[in-house]
């Protein structure tokens, strides 16, 4: 039976078999006597919601939003942020085993470099400042520390600035005012070991929460022949039977620590992350493996206060520091070369929330950011090449933004937003091979930046309490990073312009019963000026440069059915279909790369009793084709072709079992299996490894993880 047919059968059985019985539930996290002893005034002065706002139902948020709660994370046994996001409707993972590792496509679009979705942790932007990347390996937050994840799909540049192309993902960790303490250890396949600890407490008026995590994994042990049609061709890179597998060449190690403190109206968040990922980049690793070390430190101090009944302000200053070093293991036993870089960011933001009544609200903010001490350098020993790139000026960006909410009628909410942002032009300098004959210094400027105008509009119409329509329009920009601009200066190519996206979305939420919600969206995206990276080996050198690549349009439909017929059983099924078109000359009949037409997701969980739960998740990703290289020379003499083979569609099934509150002391055990059927699948080849890998990159094998922990 075809995989897609089996998927559809499972989904039909699931829909036909749901029952609608509601049961009572119990909880024992109570001290009722304390509540009954309190006076009315005392009860009315207790903060019951930490945000100060009633948690807005997803149906009333003027964006396409998916919320993952701590309960979901525990229920489905997600072991990492990557596992959580892989199961968000519309998102699909691609692991190219090169510098970026796992990155995500959204609704059929994947660029390769991780800049199209921005990540925030407690509202703090997780950009690295050097490449403007948002990589999961720069913030390895243990899942135990996560209270909630808000996945906001659609352009969000009005609120978050450049790079929120396809949306924003805000990870909210332990709130200092919540009493949540956890200690856990996990072990499993690929010699994986993971520790996590979360502690929160209070000392007078000071509330604090601290999280720490450690992760180490040896990675898969797979023959390179799974990724290469002609394994003998790897001999040119020094690959023999001794190094023709990925064993111990794709290891991962990460350390993470964070601390959040609240004192009256002041707050501070500090975090430190260090990760070492072994990668395959450009050519296969020769001995121990090429490695990529990243360190990121973030610190924010802020003040938030409700000044009057209708005015709240929030102001913060922040400092970010990022450094990276990549050591290359190519061709011989010695280190083949390295690249390193660093960047620091100082930023400040002020936001005011003004709500004079129930029908009108306006948020206004200004943001200023300065990147300092930015530098990127690298050396290729085998080629005797050295280069260093840095901006002569500090990189400064300023923005003003506003977003208004107006409710002219009870059942109609209008949202309008605008962001004005400008980056001051800066000069970059490229220094190559000092002390050698081919020494050169090149200076150039990035593209002069006019004030970017970024609008947004949303309308939510509530036909009845059970039927809600949303019309959403948004624009976002992705400004070229320093790293992209330095390549242009080095290669003396024209400056890059900002990429832009406009999204139109019509969303319909219907609640047929109190136990069933159906969420349907039609979306249409227009992407312009896309920046693509090209890496080209030349005699004695490697050349890399960027170019603005043209226009792509995408349209598609997404449907999610959520059912929660009983407290014990809940389930969710999602389907996303999309089709994209490349409008560049000569690309009219070429399928967009890395763009699956169909995505499907399934989640179901069953609570056997208060402390025992079982869950199942499944996903289906349609076939994908790799990048089309317009200058590729084919054996038959023709020009232009894919850098690798098409990869087949695949599906994976995960199972989880959790037993909580063992011995009534908060101990828990969790057993998780991902890719239960050990499905063999590949990710399509990415340009970073197109020189040797043509079949694709290996997918994840079956992984079993056992976690033991205690909540107290």
């Amino acid at each position, binding site marked *: 039976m075809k995989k897609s047919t*089996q998927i559809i059968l*499972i989904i039909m*059985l*699931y829909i036909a*078999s*749901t*029952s609608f*019985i*509601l*049961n*009572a*539930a*119990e*909880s*024992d*996290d*109570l001290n*009722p006597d304390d*509540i*009954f002893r*309190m006076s*009315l005034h005392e*009860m*009315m*002065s*207790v*903060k*019951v*919601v*930490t*945000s*100060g*706002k*009633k948690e807005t139902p997803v149906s009333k948020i003027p964006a396409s939003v998916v919320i993952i709660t701590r309960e979901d994370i525990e229920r489905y046994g997600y072991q990492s942020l990557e596992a959580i996001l892989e199961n968000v409707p519309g998102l699909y993972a691609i692991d190219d085993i090169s510098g970026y590792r796992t990155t995500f496509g959204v609704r059929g679009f994947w660029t390769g470099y991780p800049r199209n979705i921005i990540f925030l942790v407690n509202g703090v932007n997780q950009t690295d400042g050097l490449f403007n990347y948002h990589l999961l390996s720069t913030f390895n937050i243990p899942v135990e520390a996560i209270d909630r994840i808000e996945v906001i799909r659609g352009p969000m540049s009005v609120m978050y600035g450049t790079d929120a192309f396809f949306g924003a993902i805000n990870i909210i960790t332990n709130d200092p005012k919540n009493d949540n303490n956890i200690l856990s250890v996990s072990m499993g396949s690929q010699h994986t070991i993971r520790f996590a600890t979360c502690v929160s407490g209070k000392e007078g008026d000071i509330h604090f929460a601290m999280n720490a995590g450690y992760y180490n994994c040896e990675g898969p042990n797979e023959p390179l022949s799974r990724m290469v049609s002609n394994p003998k061709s790897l001999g040119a890179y020094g690959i023999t039977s001794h190094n023709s597998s990925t064993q111990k060449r794709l290891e991962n190690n990460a350390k993470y620590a964070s601390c959040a403190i609240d004192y009256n109206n002041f707050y501070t968040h500090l975090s430190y992350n260090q990760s070492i990922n072994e990668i395959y980049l450009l050519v296969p690793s020769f001995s121990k493996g090429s490695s990529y070390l990243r360190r990121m430190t973030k610190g924010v101090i802020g003040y938030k206060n*409700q000044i009057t*009944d209708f005015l*709240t302000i929030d102001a913060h200053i922040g400092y970010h520091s990022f450094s990276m070093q990549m050591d290359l293991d190519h061709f011989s036993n010695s280190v083949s070369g390295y690249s390193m870089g660093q960047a620091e960011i100082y930023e400040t933001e002020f936001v005011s929330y003004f709500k004079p009544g129930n029908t009108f609200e306006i948020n206004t903010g200004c943001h200023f950011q300065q990147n300092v001490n930015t530098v990127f350098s690298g050396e290729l020993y085998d080629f005797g090449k050295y280069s260093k790139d840095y901006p002569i000026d500090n990189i400064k960006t300023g923005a003003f933004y506003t977003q208004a909410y107006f409710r002219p009628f*009870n059942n109609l909410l209008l949202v309008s937003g605008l962001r004005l942002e400008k980056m001051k032009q800066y000069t970059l300098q490229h220094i190559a091979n000092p002390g050698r004959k081919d020494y050169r210094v090149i200076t150039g400027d990035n593209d002069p930046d006019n004030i970017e105008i970024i609008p947004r509009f949303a309308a939510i119409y509530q036909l*009845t*309490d*059970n039927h809600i329509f949303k019309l959403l329009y948004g624009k976002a920009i992705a400004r070229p990073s320093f790293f992209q601009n330095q390549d242009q200066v080095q290669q003396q190519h024209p400056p890059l312009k900002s990429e832009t996206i406009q999204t139109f979305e019509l969303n319909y939420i219907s609640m047929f019963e*109190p136990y069933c919600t159906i969420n349907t969206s039609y979306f249409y995206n227009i992407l312009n000026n896309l920046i693509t990276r090209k890496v080209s080996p030349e005699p004695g050198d490697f050349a890399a440069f960027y170019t603005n690549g043209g226009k792509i349009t995408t349209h598609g439909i997404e449907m999610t059915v959520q059912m929660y*017929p*009983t*407290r*014990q*059983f809940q*389930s969710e099924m999602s389907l996303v279909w999309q089709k994209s078109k490349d409008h560049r000359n000569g690309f009219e009949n070429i399928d967009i790369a890395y763009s699956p037409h169909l995505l499907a997701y399934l989640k*179901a969980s*069953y*609570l*056997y*009793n*208060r402390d025992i739960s*079982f869950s*199942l998740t499944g996903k289906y990703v349609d076939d994908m084709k790799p990048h089309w290289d317009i200058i590729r020379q084919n054996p038959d003499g023709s020009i232009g072709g894919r850098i690798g083979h098409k990869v087949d569609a695949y599906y994976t*099934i995960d199972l989880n079992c959790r037993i909580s509150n063992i011995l009534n002391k908060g101990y828990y055990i969790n057993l998780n299996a991902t890719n*239960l*059927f*050990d499905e063999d699948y590949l990710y399509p080849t990415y340009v970073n490894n197109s020189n040797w890998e043509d079949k694709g990159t290996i997918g994840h094998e079956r992984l079993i993880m056992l976690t033991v922990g205690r909540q107290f």
Partner: protein
Amino acid sequence: MQNQNIRKVFVVLIHTFLVFTISIETSVDASSKEYIYKAGFLEKFSRFTQWDIQSHDLDQSKNFVIAVIGHNPFGGILKKMYQKQTIKNKPVKVIYISQISEIETCHLLFISESCAPKLAKILSSLKNKPILTVSDSEGFAQKGVHINFFLTQRGTLHFEINIKRIKAAGLRVNPLLLEVARVIQ
């Protein structure tokens, strides 16, 4: 072959898991601070409200009955909190109902947000009956629910009272409760 058999077994198990849902009374941890305090407020509302004894068999009933209609947002909190509590010197009984026809004699009825489509019918069926209605959904007090919770900007729990509808139901509210509430005329 062995892998295929294992795969078949797993497929059957997964289908079985999806097909059968077992209705066993279970317990789920559904506590949230907000609903713990709302549950506590129900006791306060009852304490500051007088039922007209002549039109109601409050004196004769064994229990003080709190009913929840619609999707239960309290989880198990209500039963847990009130298992040893008394209101008007009577032990508290908590019941959960999903249909208007199931509204028996109760003293306090919590109407959940999921009842929004049929709120008018519910209130019409309760017309002038001495049953104190409580909710936590925007606009419900304006539509006739006696007491409605809302959250302030600071995240604290307050409530609004529809004084006209309470009087029409034959209930008398202590002025102390009205002092701290937002009163809707």
